[in-house]
Structure formats: structure tokens, C-alpha cells
């Protein structure tokens, strides 16, 4: 499944915009906006609502089997967007003071965001359909068999291109690495492979380069499928562990956040 990073870009621009507004307010007022004043308070309220959406909307969608609520991948993107922008607004709301319960809430927020990044990484390691549904192991094996057949056909008809490639590039087997490496260190291995293929393409005759590119694509697909098959069981296990940790942190965060809100209303507004 192709997974682009549009939600990260959207998040980046939203964070940039918020930063500019914040800097403008700081310069124009000559002070850091206090959490209890209008601007700081607004940031806190909006940030918390975004975090609440992060916590609820994606979970609701996951539990709905109907496709009419939109693709899972889209909801995940929105989940990531609100999960990044909301905590950033809460961070600005803190007025850079991290004492008391508010500080604990902020700390938990940072932890939950970091945990979210890890969760996303593990999540993307599991092969999924376009709708985000996980692909079973036997389905993955079928895809590998088909990929191998396609590759073999191409090799048989394009012997000239195959002869131009060094054997170590063709015979590389990524599954020789440990499963843990396949999950957390695979990105480095993949960069190395792409670098080798790129160098090789520059060494062969120009007429062969399109064919080499096609072969590289098929080999890359094979590598990915082999990696996924080899690491699928551990990835699912890790995702389960992550989930077991992430959810309590989230629950603790929101429990503390609700207490903070009630306390803020009582102490900062009602108390005279």
C-alpha cells in the first residue's frame, strides 16, 4: 500500500502558521501570552478539542465497518493531523510553565505524541489494502508468488539486462536479517539497496536503463513483500504491545486534562 505523507505536511504548515501568530502576539504585547488570558485560553480550548477529536474520531471509524464514513487511511491522516496540531496548541497554551497538574498534562501530551509516532511507524509496517484493512499472511504469500513469476518472466525475456547486473544485487535476500531489524532498521537497508541500484543504472548503457528501472521496481516490490512476510508476526505483536501502552497513557492524559479543566474553571474563574 502506498502511504504518502500529506498529513505531515498539513501539520507542518498548521504548526508554522500557529507559530507565526504566536510570535506576532508575543511581539505586539511584549509578553508571553498567559494561559488564563484570552489568546492563551483559546489555544488551550482549541488544542484540547483537537486532541479529543484525535482520541475519538479515528477510534469510532475503526469500529465502524461501513465504508460510507470514508477510508480508514483518510481518517488516520486526520487523526495524525489533529494529534500533532492539537498538542502543539496545548504546548503554546502552557505559556512555558510546566508546574502542577497542568505540567503533568503537558508531559503526558508529549509522551502520547511520541508514542503516536512510534505507533504510526509500526502500523505502516503491516501490509494493508487501500481501505486500510490488514492483509492476511496467506494473501501476502500469494502476492509474493505472483511477484516472483512476473520477475522471472522479465528475467527470461531480458537476459541482456540481467547480464549487465552484478549477481550480488540480484541475489540479495533481505530476509537474512533479524525480524527486529526488518521492522526498525529496514529503512537503512532499503536506502543502501536503492543507492546500489542507482549506481548500477549509471554504469550500464543508456538503452538498458529503462529496463533496469523496471527490474529495480520489481525487485523492490519483492523485497518489501519478503520483509512483510518475515516480520508480520512480530509487527502485529509489537502493535498490540504499543496499543496496550498507548491507550492507558491516553486515558491518563485525558483524565488529568479533564481534572485540569475543572480545576481551572474553579480556581481561575469561580474563586474570587
Amino acid at each position, binding site marked *: 500500500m502506498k502511504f504518502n505523507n500529506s498529513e505531515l505536511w498539513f501539520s507542518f504548515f498548521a504548526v508554522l502558521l500557529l507559530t507565526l501568530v504566536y510570535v506576532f502576539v508575543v511581539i505586539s504585547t511584549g509578553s508571553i501570552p498567559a494561559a488564563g488570558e484570552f489568546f492563551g485560553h483559546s489555544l488551550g480550548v482549541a488544542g484540547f478539542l483537537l486532541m479529543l477529536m484525535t482520541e475519538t474520531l479515528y*477510534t469510532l471509524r475503526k*469500529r465502524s465497518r461501513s465504508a460510507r464514513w470514508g477510508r480508514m487511511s483518510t481518517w488516520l491522516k486526520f487523526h495524525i493531523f489533529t494529534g500533532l496540531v492539537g498538542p502543539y496548541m496545548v504546548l503554546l497554551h502552557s505559556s512555558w510553565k510546566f508546574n502542577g497538574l497542568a505540567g503533568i498534562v503537558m508531559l503526558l501530551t508529549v509522551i502520547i505524541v511520541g508514542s503516536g509516532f512510534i505507533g504510526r511507524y509500526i502500523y505502516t509496517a503491516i501490509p494493508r489494502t487501500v481501505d486500510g484493512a490488514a492483509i492476511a499472511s496467506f494473501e501476502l504469500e500469494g502476492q509474493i508468488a505472483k511477484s516472483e513469476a512476473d520477475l522471472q518472466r522479465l528475467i527470461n525475456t531480458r537476459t541482456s539486462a540481467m547480464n549487465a547486473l552484478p549477481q550480488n544485487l540480484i541475489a540479495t535476500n533481505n530476509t537474512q536479517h533479524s525480524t527486529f531489524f526488518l521492522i526498525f532498521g529496514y529503512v537503512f537497508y532499503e536506502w543502501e539497496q536503492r543507492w546500489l541500484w542507482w549506481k548500477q543504472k549509471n554504469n550500464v548503457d543508456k538503452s538498458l536503463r529503462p529496463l533496469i528501472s523496471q527490474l529495480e521496481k520489481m525487485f523492490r516490490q519483492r523485497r518489501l513483500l519478503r520483509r512483510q512476510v518475515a516480520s508480520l508476526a512480530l509487527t502485529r505483536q509489537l502493535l498490540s504491545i504499543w496499543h496496550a501502552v498507548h*491507550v*492507558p497513557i491516553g486515558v*491518563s492524559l485525558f483524565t488529568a486534562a479533564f481534572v485540569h479543566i475543572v*480545576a481551572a474553571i474553579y480556581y481561575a474563574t*469561580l*474563586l*474570587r
Partner: protein
Amino acid sequence: MQSHRFGCLSATGIITAILTLTLILSFSLTQGGVLFSPGQLNAEKGEQAWGGVRSHAEISGDCAACHAHPWGRERMEDRCIACHINIAEELQSTESLHSVLFIENTTFTCKDCHPDHRGANAKLTLLDLNRFPHQATGFSLNAHQKMSNGEPFSCEDCHDKDITKFDVNTCEECHRDIDQVFTQAHQETFSKECLACHDGVDIYNDFDHNLLSFPLEGEHASITCSKCHLEDSSIEKLQATPRECYACHQEDDEHNGEFGESCAVCHTPRDWEDVTFDHSISGFPLEGKHTDLDCEDCHIDEVYEGTASACVDCHLEDDEHKGEFGVACEQCHTSTNWEDVTFDHALSNFPLDGAHITVACQDCHIDQVYQGTKTECAACHEDPAYHVGLFSADCITCHITNAWSPATYNEPHTFPLRHESSSSISCRTCHDVSFNIYTCYGCHEHTPSNIASEHREEGISNYEDCMECHPDGQEHDD
């Protein structure tokens, strides 16, 4: 199989939530409200204990020591002065700083100037210049929002370490940076007691004297303040500066006081020569030809006081009447033109009426001699041949001024005019040629032939003089 419950509603989630709440509750029970404190309380120990403690940090966690419950009538300020009884005593006096602040601003609270929860070593007095009613101290910060370098003011910029004290030299230090020449000159003129005049509302860069009751115009705009404000070093003295022209310009008076002390009646601040005297306010308003004259035509040697205002005082030589009409030229003439005569003849002893109105002046006043013109009718009207010598010269007995005719005769007549029941009769009926002769012919049935016939029947041959036999107009048989 996938679970349809929310993660937070799972056993782990619920346990975590309960655990979190328990932790918060436990901490609150043991440590008070510290967990909800927005920051550490000030820990600087005071010289004296108030409310049993010498610093706010000693009551950390006891939120209710300062914060009043929302359901009570008490406010935070009440709890402040419950401990700080010295401030409570200050508030009893209307002249203390605190009482002035609270009297002027009912919404003002202690924490507006004394915020806490900003750290153990943070200052307990932090005035927000945007909120602090500095004008209540007698000096507004309206004109002191930013320093000469553009930075916002802080309390220390004017008060150094003790905000309750102020050194007037601080004004000079800053204002010399802005304009040394002006500041020095200003202080030499008005002293260094800036606060005696300035209350902070005005911005001296934008000071506009024209907004005051004595706008500076003309030459006044360019003179130095001390020219008028002589050693004035308080706002009362500045406001008491005399505004009368003579207070400053007595020595400039070239009229030596003959026109009084209100120079502005004639002069403007632009220039002494720029005279704009309104002659109409004098006893001799200028009209007609008089408005074209130069002042010195009447006011010889610039002597204005006592200038004669009678016509002949200037126009004696112009009098073509050689004084025969006296000196009141204005009775006939206006100031627009000598020829523009508007004499009211009704004022004379011969009011014009009837046909006299249309008669040209020179018809009666020969050679423009007006004095002594005779008013008798005969002076102008000859006795007509029709009744020459018969009546007196008093024509008006029978005639009116509209026309000679018709005339009425009401004097005794030798022949009864109302005989034979006739109502009125025209003189011409009997006196067709002259009043000296008469005829009866033409009247009634009297014709020459029937009168001759009737008298011949009676044997009368001499019947030419009817009045001899019929003096009363009646027929007589004897």
C-alpha cells in the same frame, strides 16, 4: 475478533482512569491545592508577619487562605486585608495611595498590582501599566507609554526601586535625552518642579496652546513662553497669566493710553500696523464717501481722541449755502454724494403738498437761495386778471394746492347764491368774463329776448343793470 468498545472503556482504560484520579486526589489531600497551583508562591520573607506568616509560600496548598469560595460573599481582597491589617488601616484614610486607588477604581483588586504564583523569587508588586490607574496618584501615564528609545515604560524607569517614591530629577534625565535645549530652557523658565504643572495627560511634543482659552496667533506664536509666563512655576500661576493686551504691551502703546487698554479693538497679533478698527463701534460710523478716506484725513497727526464729528468741522469750505442752512448738512445731504439731497420739506415752515410737490426747487428758490423764501401765495402767484384786485392775497381762502380750479367761495356775496332753491352755482355762471362784471343771461330762463320782452311789457326800458331792481334775485312787482 475485533473489539467494538472504545479503548478508554476497556478494563485497562477504566483502571488507568481510576488510578489517575486516585493519584490526583491523594496528592490533593496530602498537599492541598499545590497540584492546581499555576506557580510557586512568593517565598521572600517580610520584615513583619501578617496573618501568622512572613511569606505567601508558607501557606502554599492552602488555597482558601487567599481565594474565597464562589458561593460566599467574601472576595479575595477581603482575605488580603484580613492578613494585611496595615493596608486595611490605610484604606480608612482617604489620602493614602491604596485608598486613592480603590476610591477611584471600584473594580480594582489587590492582585492587579500584587500578582503571585509567579515563582518563589518573583516580585510581589508588578504593575501592569495598562491597568494600573496611575492617574489616581495625580499623574497620568497617558503621555508616558513608551520611552524615548521606543521601549515600554517600567515602574523602575521612574521610581527606581521604591515605587512609592519619585525623584523629580528623573523627569529631567529622560527629557534631556529627547530635547536638551528645550528642557534646559524650560526648566530655567519654569523651575524643575515639573509635577507642579504637568499631570501626565499632556504630551509636550504635541502641546498645543491653541487649544487653550488663549490661542497663540500671529507674532504671539513665535515668542518664548517666558515672555508671557514670567517665572510661573505652577499650573495655577500659568493659568493666572493675564490675557489683557496692556499687561504685556503697555510700553508699546503709541497712543499713550488715549484709546484705552483694549488694543485688540483695532490691532491684531499679526502686526501693530495691521489695524482693523471697526469704525462702526465708534460714535461716528463710516458710510458712503467717508469709507474711502484715509484715517489721517480726519484724524490729523494721528490724533484720534476728541475728533470733531459735526459736518462743518470738515466740510465748512464745501458749504455752497454759505452757512445759510446752518451746520446740520445731514438734514438734506447723505454721505454718498453732495448731490444726493434728501431734504424733507415737511420739516420746514412750508410743507409741500398738492401741486407744490412736483415743482422744482429752483422754481421757488431762485439762484438756490433757500433761506428766507417767502411763503405767501402772491410771492409766486400773480392775481389773475379774472379777479384782479377783488380778493385778498390769501388765495387759500378759496383755492387748494392741488389746482386752481375748482375753487370755493364762502365769503358774503352781494347776490344771494342760493336763490330759487339752487344748491350751488359756478362763479362762471354769472361772471363769465370777470368778477368785476356780471350777467344774468344764461341763468334760469333769463335770455336777452325774454327779459327784454318782459320788461317792455312792464314799460321798463332801462333794465340793463338787473341788480339795481333785483338785488336779492327775486321778482318784484312794484
